[in-house]
């Protein structure tokens, strides 16, 4: 038994009659190296730990946390959570998750070699990435090159019989670039992510960072019009992140999802099959248990365009009259479980991006978007985002464009999907990327 599990168990064992208690305990550390012009600009080495305790009594929930595992602070946290439970509104659906018998799908989330990876090698990786990016194009400057790794271990225990723990680690390198041409400067970035620092693809990270910055040099603002867009895999992954909040069971039970009454109906093009599957080891966010300690599972949300199900935590499931789909999310010890998609993927088509573009007479390849957090409203469905990319003319990429927006509504975009590419990219996000073709999107420029 881990030390953290013992601590979580000890808190839960203090439950009084009629009281449900959940203790979530975590500890983690990180290293971060930033290189600038061949020198270490900063080196961060840090550890943190903490506990969050939920108390539910008579349908009222209270929560408290502390960023320390000091025994006196842990006692305070339980007392505060109990005190806070007095102030909540009675909620007949309040409660903790209960074991549901779904087994964990084993994942390889810990790499011992990373845990002992020597510091000089970390510095050297970031320096090498900076060198590669600079060598990629004479117009390139590097803003920063980074190596980072992190590890974490967690344990959760509840009075309802949940007892789960685990640990994982991971690492990445990244580089931010600037490309200059006269008065104009554009920016790019590249990265490589994994659990094995010896398996980084530094060349690709550098090439991406160079390409992203240089391809926008000389880009102009296009004239406004409606056209077909091709979302780059990196952009599709961000788009799926927006779609995911409409499939969130908590938003559904609280009336905030635009799909709340649409189960069983066609909400997307027949080409769209959307799966949330954190048991897939390819997914960056693959995990064995969710934020409440239930095993994760594969859930088909949209099947051939038909809305099949929403994702749920135990709370939203109880309110919806269904069972948890293992989709409780949690932002560490300082927060309580929410609901969300964990590892989305569009079931891919067969063609490459180049083959797709060859069939488009008038379109836009969207290579980056900005302002998704401000211009997209998942409740109303309004979608408007800043973008840059390349125009497509007569089946070929034409000139680069920037300082434009693309707009539609989420409802229409799902129905207007014309093709899903075959180029799946397992990006370090909650959704996998793939090229996605959407008809009839408004591009705003001059």
């Amino acid at each position, binding site marked *: 038994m881990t030390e953290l599990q013992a601590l979580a168990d000890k808190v839960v064992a203090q439950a009084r009659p009629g009281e449900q208690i959940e203790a979530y305990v975590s500890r983690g550390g990180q290293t971060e190296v930033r290189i600038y012009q061949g020198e270490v600009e900063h080196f961060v080495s840090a550890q943190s730990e903490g506990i969050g305790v939920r108390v539910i009594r008579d349908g009222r*929930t209270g929560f*408290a*946390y502390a960023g320390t595992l000091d025994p006196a602070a842990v006692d305070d946290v339980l007392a505060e959570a109990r005190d806070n439970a007095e102030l909540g509104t009675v909620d007949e659906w309040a409660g903790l998750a209960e074991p549901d018998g779904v087994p964990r799908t084993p994942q390889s989330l810990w790499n011992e070699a990373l845990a002992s990876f020597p510091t000089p090698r970390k510095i050297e990786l970031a320096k090498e990435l900076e060198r590669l990016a600079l060598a990629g194009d004479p117009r390139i400057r590097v*803003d920063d090159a980074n190596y980072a790794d992190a590890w974490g271990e967690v344990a959760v225990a509840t009075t309802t019989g949940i007892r789960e723990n685990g640990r994982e680690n991971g690492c990445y390198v990244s580089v931010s670039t600037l490309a200059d041409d006269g008065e104009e400067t554009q920016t790019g970035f590249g990265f490589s992510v994994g659990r094995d620092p010896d398996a980084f693809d530094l060349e690709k990270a550098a090439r991406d960072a160079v390409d992203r910055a240089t391809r926008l040099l000389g880009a102009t603002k296009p004239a406004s019009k409606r056209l077909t867009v091709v979302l780059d895999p990196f952009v599709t992954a961000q788009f799926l992140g927006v779609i995911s909040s409409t499939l969130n069971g908590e938003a559904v039970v609280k009336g905030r999802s635009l799909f709340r009454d649409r189960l069983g109906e066609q909400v997307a093009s027949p080409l769209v099959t959307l799966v949330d599957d954190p048991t897939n080891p390819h997914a960056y966010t693959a995990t064995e248990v969710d934020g409440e300690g239930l095993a994760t599972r594969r859930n088909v949300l949209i099947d051939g365009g038909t809305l099949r199900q929403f994702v749920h935590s135990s709370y939203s499931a109880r309110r919806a009259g269904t069972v948890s789909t293992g989709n409780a999310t949690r932002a560490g010890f300082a927060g309580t479980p929410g609901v969300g998609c964990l590892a989305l993927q569009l079931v891919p088509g067969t063609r490459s991006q180049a083959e797709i573009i060859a069939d488009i007479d008038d379109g836009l390849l969207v290579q980056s978007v900005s302002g998704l957090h*401000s211009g997209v409203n998942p409740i109303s469905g309004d979608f*408007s*985002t800043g973008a840059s990319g390349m125009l497509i003319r007569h089946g070929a990429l034409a000139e680069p464009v920037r*300082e434009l927006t693309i707009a539609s509504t989420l409802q229409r975009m799902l129905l207007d999907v014309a093709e899903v590419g075959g180029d799946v990219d397992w990006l370090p996000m909650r959704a996998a990327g793939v090229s996605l073709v959407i008809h009839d999107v408004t591009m705003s420029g001059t």
Partner: protein
Amino acid sequence: MSPVIDHDVLERVLSAAMRSGGEFAEIYAEDKRSTSAALDDGRVEQVTSGRDRGAGIRVVAGETTGFAHTSDLTERGLLAAAEAAAAAARQGGGGARTIALSRQDVAAHSTVERFPDEIAKAAKVELLQRLDDAARSAGAEIVQVSAGYADSRKRVLVANSDGLLAEDEVVRLLVRVSAVADGDTGMQTGYASMGHTVGFELFDTVDVTELARDAARQAITKLRARPAPSGTMPVVIKHGTGGVLFHEACGHGLEADHIAKGASVYTGKVGELVASPLVTVVDDGTMAGEWGTLSIDDEGHPTQRNVLIQDGVLTDYMWDFLRARKQGRAPSGNGRRQSYMHLPMVRMTNTFVTAGTSDPADIISSTEKGVYIARLGGGQVNTASGDFVFGMTEAYLIEHGEITEPLREANLIGNGPQALRDIDAVGNDFAMGGPGTCGKDGQGVPVGTGQPTLRVAALTIGGTAA
């Protein structure tokens, strides 16, 4: 009140941090207690209490900064962090150095009468219920309301190897409410928030139900909104709702870290005309009670009022301690960090455009066709290219000099230097806006913004209507 860390412990830890060389060491310690409460769907779902306490230690040697943090504030824990930071700065050779700290006087800009941690939690929960009631009674169209309350009381201590010792206490209160209205055209949302660096006495003079009515009104109004236009046109921004435009369009580009790396469109432009002569932009961390106000920044230096652009001419950048020191100049009080777990960097405080002379009504009536923005949402900027985007969360069409129909949400997009030059009217009605959280390099810090009603002659509206 007992100190966060004893004076003599600080001196010993700083000496240890400098033992292996390096020219600068710093301890930043904080002890924060926070309370938050969330109401959603008619229920107070949860009251949360939080305790965050720890110290971050940095050691600077040459071009390298080593940083480590710990939640263990005992001398043993601090020494371990100091050694980790010194090792990270990985310089060898230096000799022992004794540090003598002298306490700085700290001028308080915000005053607190009733500390939130001394207020019964039930009073905080009651605020949420009033918000819920007020939003729901604004119209039958309102189908969902969520509201949040958050307060924090944070003690901060900064000590460094130059002998600086400064302590401060920061109190924050935040209230937010969002409403969903449902109608024939689907659902629409409204949002309002208020945040100040004051105590619970805020609610003696401010009626929080105004926020709830405002959020509900926005959602209901948008039910009859038509799609926003697509294309470039004049934009009038209502006072106190669009200061974030300047935070993004020029503020970030005037941060000295971006300047030092040549990653800003404003690099090398001090003394040049970079905006319309109607525009004066200020960053001021000393405004009483405002969300971005601090007595000292997170490196222990007093905040101040910094004029960034005067009558269109770029006058100065914003600085943190290390970059200012490298330039041989005084810091500007802009070194900030999210928490003890983060390295400080150049950040804004309260950033605003000062009042002009135009009557706001004239600005609207002299606009033949355009968009009136009554609330800008979040935004994002690329400091190197200057391109920015913003969400328009409440906007209307201007036709023949009059505000006419409400518009559905959309982003607007522009280029910072171009937008600053394109400002052709600045109103006399300055107002600060709601509380913001500025994100940079993964760290979020509270910031304020403000501006009078003003017009930008051309911005691109990212709607779908012709």
